[in-house]
């Protein structure tokens, strides 16, 4: 079948306007072979498409999805947004409390992220099929991660409030639990999708699993890991809305208060502060990730 270097007779291609080489030579052609798996693949694609369409139809139905409503209600939205402008930039009453609350939020987000690194890392290594010691541990680690993700923040917060009282600490603990679940899962998957070559190379060299992870998987995964870590930091900083609800304070509480008293211009100020914070975190994150690239 490998027919070596073929010098095919030129085929008649005069009817193709693009059928000439830049050097003026006619272009060789060869028929495309039939793909035996094609009908099978097309069939399964069509099947998947049908399932997707049906599921979406059900979902549109179940949620009363009617984009037309959006257009109709545009005026109301404009009014809401109009209410928020201009933002209330009063220093004493709005901006200063906003900045102070943002600092608390930042601390909560930081601890919620960094304190969960060890547990998340451990669970991630156990729950990635390229690094796990065996199927049993793998399934157990996955189950633990799922559990941490299934329990809502607010329930964790309640549990911890009973132990440590109201305040930011309970919120931090709730975030740590939740973040362990999410970050562990994201890390595990990013390890599974990486190039396994270096890890396999160390495995064949007799390195223990721990050594493989330390000297191949982790160094290869560092940029993704840091990217995801910074993403979670960002999320955790914003999940102070939930924390505000359990007395952790932070900017979420202020946003909540301004909504409850219909002071949308204050709300906008708080959102702008969060936006600035997020942009700063983003830039720092981009910087760190650039420095980590080889």
């Amino acid at each position, binding site marked *: 079948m490998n027919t070596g270097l073929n010098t095919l007779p030129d085929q008649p291609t005069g009817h193709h306007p693009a059928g000439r080489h830049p050097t003026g030579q006619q272009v060789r052609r060869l028929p495309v072979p039939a793909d035996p798996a094609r009908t099978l693949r097309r069939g399964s694609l069509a099947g998947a498409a049908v399932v997707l369409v049906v599921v979406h139809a059900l979902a549109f139905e179940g949620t009363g999805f009617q984009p037309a409503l959006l257009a109709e*209600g545009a005026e109301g939205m404009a009014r809401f947004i109009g209410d928020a402008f201009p933002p209330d930039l009063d220093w004493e009453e709005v901006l200063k409390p906003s900045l102070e609350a943002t600092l608390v939020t930042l601390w909560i987000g930081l601890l919620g992220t960094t304190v969960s690194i060890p547990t998340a890392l451990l669970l991630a290594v156990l729950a990635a099929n390229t690094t796990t010691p065996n199927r049993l541990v793998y399934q157990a680690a996955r189950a633990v991660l799922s559990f941490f993700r299934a329990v809502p923040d607010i329930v964790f917060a309640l549990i911890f409030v*009973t132990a440590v009282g109201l305040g930011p600490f309970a919120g931090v603990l709730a975030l740590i639990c939740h973040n362990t679940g999410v970050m562990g899962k994201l890390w595990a998957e990013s390890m599974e999708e990486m190039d396994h070559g270096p890890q396999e190379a160390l495995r064949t060299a007799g390195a223990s699993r721990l050594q493989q992870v330390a000297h191949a998987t982790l160094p290869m995964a560092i940029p993704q890991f840091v990217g995801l870590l910074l993403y979670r930091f960002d999320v955790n900083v914003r999940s102070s809305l939930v924390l505000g609800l359990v007395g952790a304070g932070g900017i979420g509480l202020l946003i909540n208060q301004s909504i*409850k*008293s219909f002071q949308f211009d204050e709300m906008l100020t708080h959102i702008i502060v969060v936006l600035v914070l997020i942009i700063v975190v983003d830039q720092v994150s981009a910087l760190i990730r650039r420095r980590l690239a080889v």
Partner: protein
Amino acid sequence: APTAAASATCPGGAIEFGIEPYEDPAKLEPAYRVLADALSQELDCPVNVQVVEDYAAEVLAMRNGKLHLGQFGPLGYVFASEEANAEPLVSFATAEGQLSSYTAGIWVPKDSDIRSVADLRDRDLALGGVGSTSGDVLPRYALREAGLPEADLNVNYAGGHPEALLALVNGTVDAAQINSQTLATATAAGTFDASQFRQVWESEPIPNDPITVAGDADPEFKRAVKEALLNLPPEAIAEVGAFLDVTPPGPLAEVAKDTYRPLFDLASTMGLTEEDL
């Protein structure tokens, strides 16, 4: 249904009814569902009940004509009235025709040295959720009345009435707000033993949640809804009463903006609304 066509008493072919069972969802929500069914019968128009956890969404929906009827907590109603021009129609009443009400309170452990609101200086106080009448605004009003600035004690939101109660039960705060409804629920659930605690402050009775209609609705619709609510069949009332522990239950009682006047005053005193409104 063939009757679902739009008419004065059936705007848009279905009535949107929003409820915010802020104080005690386990009881209020089923009560409102029974009520909505009865209303649907009376007006011959489907009623969609939407349960929300935040009055802000309800108010905004009503303001833009997306919500015809709304039940609000007392403070939520103040905002609904000011932002969406909501008009109160009825509220629940006892068999004697007395408008039902509840009270806010601040509780401390039985052997605490806190005797009054003023003693809360430098202590931990757990409030409920932001914007709650009995869980936020009234206790803070009490602090203000006692001349105690909020900066002089450690006030924390627990996230809701039950959360505040739990914080007290678990001993992680010195005092917590507990309203009369939460007290009843928690006592019934066995979570709270009133003999172990002491109430150091209680508010004036707060009238129960009103059912309101959007201000810019057709007057005929307003009238029809009010009539239907006031003339609910006794079976429906009985069912509602069972949920609310009001036995024997009375028919719904008419309320007006004035019924809630103290709450308007409270909101403006506490700086939640502009004075001039």
